[in-house]
């Protein structure tokens, strides 16, 4: 994938939480227009990778480049303004804001009223349910609806790169399917996606290329159809020796 145009490039990223060495030299590439997934067991460092890219966690060393610009350790609002949006783990809806306000928070940095309106329509197309709940408080939504809102909120900044942290977590099986479908749809409209998942099967069937993380390191990478056949993947999850 070297010839493709790169959107995001992470090089030898090291992150510490106090004494814990959480990321031990992560390198990955996200080409424009692709869905890239990071999979791995809990505590492998998937979330840390995303939050470091987003600027919420500081990297000790390494480099993050977005559209050719160095964004390592830039504050989160700058990263967002440059075109990276994130659907955080656990959705993190603003519970005391209405659905509409949650969406407007997503569009916080934007000033183009018409563009915002357009994107709002797009989001309602993706998730008609949200339109019905516009004036409801975010905290009163069901888990699935909150996930829809979290994704929509991230889309409202019209991002170039959308990072999603465990969008299927805690959802009923049918909703899990729906979420993966939506991810494909969003990608189809031209948004590049970096997806972190615990649901390895779902993620690998949705994405084009995947990285397998284990205790802060990438242990395996490749096109997803290859990874799906790989015994190592199974091992990473189940410890099958």
């Amino acid at each position: 994938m070297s010839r493709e145009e790169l959107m995001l490039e992470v090089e030898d990223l090291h992150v510490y939480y106090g004494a814990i060495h959480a990321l031990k030299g992560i390198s990955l590439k996200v080409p424009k227009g692709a869905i890239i997934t990071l999979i791995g067991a809990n505590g492998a460092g998937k979330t840390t990778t995303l939050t470091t890219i987003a600027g919420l966690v500081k990297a000790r060393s390494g480099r993050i480049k977005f559209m050719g610009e160095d964004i390592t350790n830039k504050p989160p609002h700058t990263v967002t303004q440059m075109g990276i949006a994130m659907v955080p783990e656990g959705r993190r809806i603003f519970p005391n804001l209405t659905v509409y306000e949650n969406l407007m928070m997503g569009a916080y940095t934007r000033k183009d009223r018409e563009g915002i309106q357009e994107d709002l329509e797009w989001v309602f197309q993706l998730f008609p349910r949200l339109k019905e709940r516009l004036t409801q408080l975010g905290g009163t939504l069901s888990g699935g609806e909150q996930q829809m809102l979290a994704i929509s909120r991230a889309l409202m900044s019209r991002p170039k790169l959308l990072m999603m942290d465990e969008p299927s977590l805690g959802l009923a099986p049918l909703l899990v399917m729906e979420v993966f479908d939506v991810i494909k749809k969003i990608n189809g409209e031209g948004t590049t996606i970096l997806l972190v998942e615990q649901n390895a099967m779902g993620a690998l069937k949705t994405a084009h290329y995947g990285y397998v993380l284990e205790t802060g390191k990438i242990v395996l990478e490749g096109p997803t159809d290859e990874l799906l056949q790989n015994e190592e993947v199974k091992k990473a999850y189940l410890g099958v020796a």
Partner: protein
Amino acid sequence: MESKRKEDYLLFLEHVTMRFGGLVAVDDFYNGVRPGELLGLIGPNGAGKTTVFNVITGIYTPTSGRVYFRGMDITGLKPHVITHLGISRTFQNIRLFYNLTVLENVLVAQHHSITNKDADKFLEKHGFEKKGFGSMWLGKAILKTPGYMKLEKDMLKEAEELLEKVELLEYKNELASSLPYGMQRKLEIARALATDPQLILLDEPAAGMNPQETEELMRFITRIRDEFNVTVLLIEHDMKVVMGICERIIVLDYGKIIAEGTASEVQSNPKVIEAYLGEWEHVS
């Protein structure tokens, strides 16, 4: 599931359910830890493992059900009483006393044996012996009476012996915060052992460790089980650790026990595979 007799268990959770508002974190847990075994409690994130720990150690009182330890009903007792009765624990995010030295961390863990009168009464009521180094009156500590000095000396001796066994003695005067991560984990386990427990609960001891550290930790856990004669209950999401050392494994998903058995039994259980790898194949 086969019928279980709580008398066969060191610790038994009898139909324990823990609800938080609408969320059922632990759903009708009916199982326990047998004396001397190394039991693993596993499950995906949010399955309710840590909640089980918090119920056992008295941080939460279960919504319904009882907890039995050595035949005593310990449901609803305070955490410090439960520790005195013989259950000790470590935490998912290491919780050492960072401004104390390694030695002091261990000494603190012995302190309950000289002050915990309520728990002693509870023990005596159930026909067990009181434990500890004797009683402590603050006046003795101020006046430094011979009795008190002996007490301190005994505690110190025992603490140093313990540190020697876990190979941390050479760091005894270092601040806990200055130890490297792997060593902090070890110290946390040592500190739990210093409370003189029958049962020790380890909450994700391998979290944040690299493969070599993990290997070493696995050996360490098996060793302390034999050397300190304790029963071990272990939470872990790193399946390799659990598969490597646990004799029996209980798998939790969405608060429910979905499987129980040896490593290989659990590994081949379709419900477990689904819980860990995702339900995609199942629906499509």
